[in-house]
């Protein structure tokens, strides 16, 4: 009995201790020493990005004495869920870094604050690339500010080009050229491919990206109208199916499985000679220690008359709905997307930033391969379209994919697949 009382007492003491320590973490979101504390959530915790964002935050804090920005790391991928829960409960952060393509979706669902009240100057938006600013608008009002962006480029192995008798300074510019070049770069050992010249669906371009590229940069939904079943898109899908049939299911699956875990990369490993990826892929090549000579160019155009349309994404800084200090939050966001901070970010992280001036200044400071890749990226940005989530068909991608999948597996003709896909998406209109 004594033992029981003793252990119960111990338990109570521990519980008390816990509650005390638990409470010590309480956020002092009210002004501390007269300063306003702005909660800033990002997913940048790695040893490369953390110091950069921390310095930007520190610089801001030191540059004025009314606001203190508190930066908290929330894990990548989970940050959206946590942000959502916090908004639902009414106690979100003041500034959050979020995905650019879903800004209008969040705006529609009342998850972000309208920032137009805090942007007095009309010239504010001119700092940024137009396509980026357009993506943060919902019903004509800005709900976020672009921070970084990216674009997909075509990386190619110059050494492999030389070996195959191709000019390493003349990468393919059209789909036809790409096909020819890729086939020259295939390497086979009996029945097995030891190197694939190029496969359009490896890397940063998926079927939707190619279909968009063929259709003059027009996505599946344009101005609220469905543009899934268009002649150019059908042609593109047929083209993709041909690639798949040429190499065969098994080869493609093996390749995909080998490189799916993200640790090794097929281009760096020399298993493909051309590869699609974002501009920052350059840092992976640089850090891998490979001796390969590589080149980079914009994505190929559908034909001589088309443009090299590419896919883009990016991140924005936004103020979640219900944030306690939107005005101060906006002040910080203005600094974050201003030339100084953006230039620093671009320099240290080799990211494409949204601020045009910053991007151009940084480019001048780069040398060698870094400069080449950055230049191509900036060039590609002109033809980069983003893929904002359409309000009335938020689930559209998930509904289209199974049909594309069936076409790729030969279970359905490309015409039929896109036709049915458009019908299916129309069914689920919200």
């Amino acid at each position, binding site marked *: 009995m004594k033992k029981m009382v003793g252990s119960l007492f111990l338990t109570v003491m521990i519980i008390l201790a816990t509650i005390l320590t638990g409470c010590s973490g309480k956020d002092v979101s009210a002004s501390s020493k007269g300063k306003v504390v702005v909660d800033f959530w990002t997913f940048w915790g790695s040893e490369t990005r953390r110091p950069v964002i921390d310095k930007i935050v520190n610089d801001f804090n030191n540059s004025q004495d009314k606001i203190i920005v508190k930066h908290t790391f929330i894990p990548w991928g989970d940050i959206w869920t946590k942000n959502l829960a916090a908004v639902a409960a009414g106690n979100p952060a003041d500034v959050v870094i979020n995905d650019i393509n879903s800004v209008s979706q969040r705006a529609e669902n009342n998850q972000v604050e309208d920032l137009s009240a805090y942007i007095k100057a009309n010239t504010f938006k001119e700092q940024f690339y137009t396509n980026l600013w357009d993506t943060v608008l919902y019903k004509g009002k800005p709900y976020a500010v672009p921070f970084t962006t990216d674009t997909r480029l075509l990386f190619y192995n110059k050494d492999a080009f030389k070996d195959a008798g191709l000019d390493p300074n003349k990468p393919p510019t059209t789909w036809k050229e790409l096909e020819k070049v890729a086939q020259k770069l295939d390497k086979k050992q009996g029945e097995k491919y030891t190197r694939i010249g190029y496969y359009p669906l490896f890397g940063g371009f998926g079927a939707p990206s190619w279909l968009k590229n063929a259709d003059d940069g027009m996505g599946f939904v344009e101005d609220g109208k469905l543009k899934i079943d268009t002649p150019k898109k059908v042609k593109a899908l047929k083209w993709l199916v041909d690639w798949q049939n040429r190499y065969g299911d098994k080869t493609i699956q093996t390749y995909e499985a080998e*490189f799916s875990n993200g640790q090794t990369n097929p281009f760096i490993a020399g298993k493909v000679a051309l590869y699609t990826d974002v501009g920052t892929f350059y840092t992976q090549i640089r850090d891998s220690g490979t001796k390969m000579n590589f080149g980079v160019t914009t994505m190929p155009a559908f034909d001589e008359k088309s443009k090299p349309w590419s896919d883009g994404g990016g991140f924005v800084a936004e103020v979640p709905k219900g944030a306690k200090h939107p005005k101060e939050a906006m002040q910080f966001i203005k600094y974050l997307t201003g030339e100084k901070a953006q230039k620093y970010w671009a320099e240290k992280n080799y990211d494409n930033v949204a601020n045009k001036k910053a991007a151009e200044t940084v480019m001048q400071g780069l040398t060698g391969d870094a400069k080449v890749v950055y230049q191509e990226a900036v060039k590609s940005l002109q033809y980069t379209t983003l893929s904002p989530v359409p309000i009335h068909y938020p689930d559209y991608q998930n509904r289209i994919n199974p049909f594309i999948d069936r076409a790729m597996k030969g279970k359905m003709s490309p015409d039929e697949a896109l036709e049915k896909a458009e019908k299916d998406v129309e069914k689920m209109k919200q």
Partner: protein
Amino acid sequence: MRLAGSLERKKKFSFKNLLVFLILLVGSMVLLTPLCWMILTSLKSPQEIMQYPPPFLPQKFHFSNYLEAWKTGNFTRWSLNTLLIAVMNTIGNVLVNSFVAYGFAKIRFKGRNVLFILVLSTMLLPGFVTMIPQYILFSKLGWVNTYLPLIVPAFLGSAFNIFLLRQFMMTIPNEIAEAAIMDGANHFRIWWTITMPLIKPALITVAIFSFTGAWNDLLGPLLYLSDENLYTLQLGLQTFKGSVQTQWNYLMAMSVMVLIPTILIFFIFQRYFIKGANVSAGMKG
């Protein structure tokens, strides 16, 4: 009632035991492969990890990965935090769930079966549809950014553990308990002095499950903690997972380190899993 013929059994045993030993050995090697791979990856350089085909052994053993990884975040603090949460969870789960399970297993009260089905049914609903309403609830209580949402539920019973302990308690014959009641003991005494010792392996199991569950929990701390000083180890591990690239060597190194306490707990506690120590027929004094 000790048996003769044990000499005979010894001879049989050595052949059967050898077979068992071999199977266990092969099984162990198979099971340890992923762990081996994890440790080897944690000792490689980033370049080696990116190589294809991936080398089995690293050229040099980069033990510095462990040190570097530890320095990246506030891992010391995070370890203590996680330890606190895990210990509290274990205490709560073991005490409260055995208490509640006793009620279901040994006391015939009105509405018991219906209530038990209700308990079971709480396990049936996928967690994340109640995740947001629960978060809002805790938020209204002011418990967000504290450890309370992560610890208090352990003191309010969990269906899984209640079910588990109830099953174990129902394997104990009632004669001993009934004799104790005749002697004037009440149910609390029986619970504490008779039943608990008899289901020690089950309690240890609940303790181990509880500790490792809390130790490895990601969703709870992720949702409810917004102050990096309060973070737990699993949450801290995510610093290596990037939007562009993941730092595999550090991630694996820290994953190995995070693993060690749970292995220790298991190794220590399993000495209670001794054959015949808790005979349901109550042979012990």
